């Protein structure tokens, strides 16, 4: 029983990560129909940047976090002002399914390359926000950072969901993804929504990188794997529903932990990916990508 609980806790922790990246992807995809494949790299920048500022440059932790979040926001702003602006506001460049994947893929390559040049190839962990040994109740152990990650994921997932559900601004954000002309004629600035939500989700991803890094550590190459599982989690939420993406991410995380605990520790990832692969191929409708209506 306690083994199950421990596995569950571990699963929920990693699942919260997958889920929140899925949510970041989903909310931005909803606005501009582009998948943010660089979301994992923003997390990596957050974690490694904070670690460097605090440990090497001896900045206070809070200041380090603020500087890093501002820097990530700035990078997102610059990318939007240059690349996305030319591609979507000017309407030149590649579009369609190539645009869905490859602009942010390019950004991801640049961020990794830059991180490697600046930070090197070592693993880093930002300092713990809530330091101390694992919380223990009898045989049940849970990492403090894990609790934080989980709570933060649930809270931010709820905020994103409520934003889209209850505010005019949230509806307007959805409208941008439905019809650019349709949103512009009522005075919605679709470029502004795209930019704001890109910056917010980038900063959110960086924040999660900072909170989570005491658990796993980050290298410059940590980004793509996170992004990829985020894409899958978002995929199970039709790429558009951040709330459902968090739930899907949690489910993936728990499944991964259970497979590792009860089936095989070596092949748990292999099994997980194989299961996800099978679900996507055999039941593509779970992705919510409904077939083209008549």
């Amino acid at each position, binding site marked *: 029983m306690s083994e199950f609980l421990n596995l569950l806790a571990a699963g929920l922790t990693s699942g919260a990560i997958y889920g929140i990246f899925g949510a970041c992807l989903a909310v931005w995809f909803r606005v501009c*129909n582009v998948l943010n494949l660089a979301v994992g790299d923003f997390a990596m920048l957050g974690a490694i940047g904070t670690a460097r500022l605090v440990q090497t440059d001896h900045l206070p932790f809070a200041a380090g976090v603020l500087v890093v979040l501002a820097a990530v926001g700035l990078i997102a702003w610059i990318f939007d002002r240059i*690349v996305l602006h*030319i*591609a*979507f506001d000017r*309407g*030149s*460049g*590649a*579009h*369609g*399914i*190539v*645009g*869905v*994947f*490859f*602009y942010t*893929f*390019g*950004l991801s*390559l*640049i*961020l*990794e*390359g*830059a991180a*490697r*040049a600046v930070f090197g190839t070592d693993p880093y962990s930002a300092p713990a926000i809530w330091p101390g040994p694992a919380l223990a109740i009898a045989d049940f152990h849970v990492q403090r950072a894990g609790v934080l990650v989980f709570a933060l994921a649930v809270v931010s997932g709820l905020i994103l969901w409520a934003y889209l559900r209850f505010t005019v601004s949230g509806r307007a954000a959805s409208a941008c*993804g*439905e*019809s*650019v*002309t*349709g949103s512009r004629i009522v005075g919605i600035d679709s470029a502004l929504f795209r930019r704001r939500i890109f910056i917010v989700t980038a900063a959110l991803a960086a924040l999660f990188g900072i909170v989570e890094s005491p658990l796993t550590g980050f290298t410059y190459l940590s980004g*793509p*794997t996170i992004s*990829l599982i985020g*894409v*899958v989690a978002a*995929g199970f939420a039709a*790429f558009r529903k951040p709330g459902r993406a968090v739930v899907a991410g949690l489910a993936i995380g728990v499944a991964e932990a259970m497979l590792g605990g009860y089936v095989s520790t*070596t*092949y748990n*990832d*292999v099994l*997980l*990916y*194989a299961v*996800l*692969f099978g679900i*996507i*191929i*055999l039941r*593509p409708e779970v*992705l919510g*990508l409904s*077939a*083209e*209506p008549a």
Partner: protein
Amino acid sequence: MSEPAAADRGTIDSSAATGPAAAAASSAGPPAAPGPAARHVRRRDPVPLAATVAITVLGGLVLTALNGSYLGLTVTTGVAYAVVTVGMVLQLGYSRQLAFSQSVFMGVGAYGTGVLETKYGFSSLESLLAVIALAAVASLLMGAVVTRAPGLALALATLLLPLFVYQLAADSGWLGSFSGIDGVLPFWNGPDYESTLVRSGIISVLLLGLAAGLVLRVMRSGVGLQLMAMASDERLGESIGVSLRQRRLEVFVLGSVLAAVGGAVLVSAQGLVTPDVLSETSEITLLLMLFVAGRKSVIGAILGAIVIEYLTTSTSFISTNIGIIEGIALLVILLVEPDGVAGAVARLLGRRTDRWADSLRSWSAGRFRAGGGGDGARNAA
């Protein structure tokens, strides 16, 4: 019913496109008197064969000139990637089948060659043929399931493939775990290392030439026209009698087999197999080679593969910062010329044709003016 951004642009485009050229067609109302016989259409298509010969001869000469130097090895490695990217031109570029499974099938070719040669004593030719058959069967089985999924699901599922196949290979003792399999045979042994490299390189270039000829032949055939139609719109494809399932599967298998051949070429040049060939990084590199040079151009894909492979292994500054360079190159290409460097070159060459089109347009505008318009008031009900 859903007509998001693309449709928005469509309206503006169409309003821009209509107008002066309004009607070479309307003035020649159908059914027209039978004019001169249908345009002369060339029956024989010499391009694929010419491409095969040119690539083989040119590549052979280059490799002979490099005479087994380190650069020669780099070029041969680039040729191996080029065999894969040529297949991707057909699969991703021309048929727009967004599948990210090429690195996995490269792995099938690489590990297949390694296992067959080191554990079962196959010769390099035997193992090449066996690997082609293996990849064909494997991709047929996998493709039969995978290609049923709609576009984005296919992309998503095949994105996961490199993740778990890499771990599978890296954890497998039989496949040599992280160190892989050593002692893979070259295609064609020579008396010394250099001549072996040159001879094997020539075989590699021949395989590349064959791959390019094959892909060009398919793209320029009637089946290629069908692929073009279904790539632009699957429902349109169906309605003109294209079997979507058959074509998707065929393209998947062809792309996968060429990827496996590329894998075999790669390991025979390097002499060993490591799980790296299966990793996401390998898939990313392949995608870059394809997109930077031009996803619809065979020549572009070949040059892209060789040049990027050269840059990755060359001077230390470029190879350490290759990520940034590749990323920026990719973004610039996507923004400026989505069809890649090859597309830009083709456009420069196409300027002259455009000038003809312009004069045709002004001519038809003149006819329109003479014919008189403004008869929109007739359909008053």
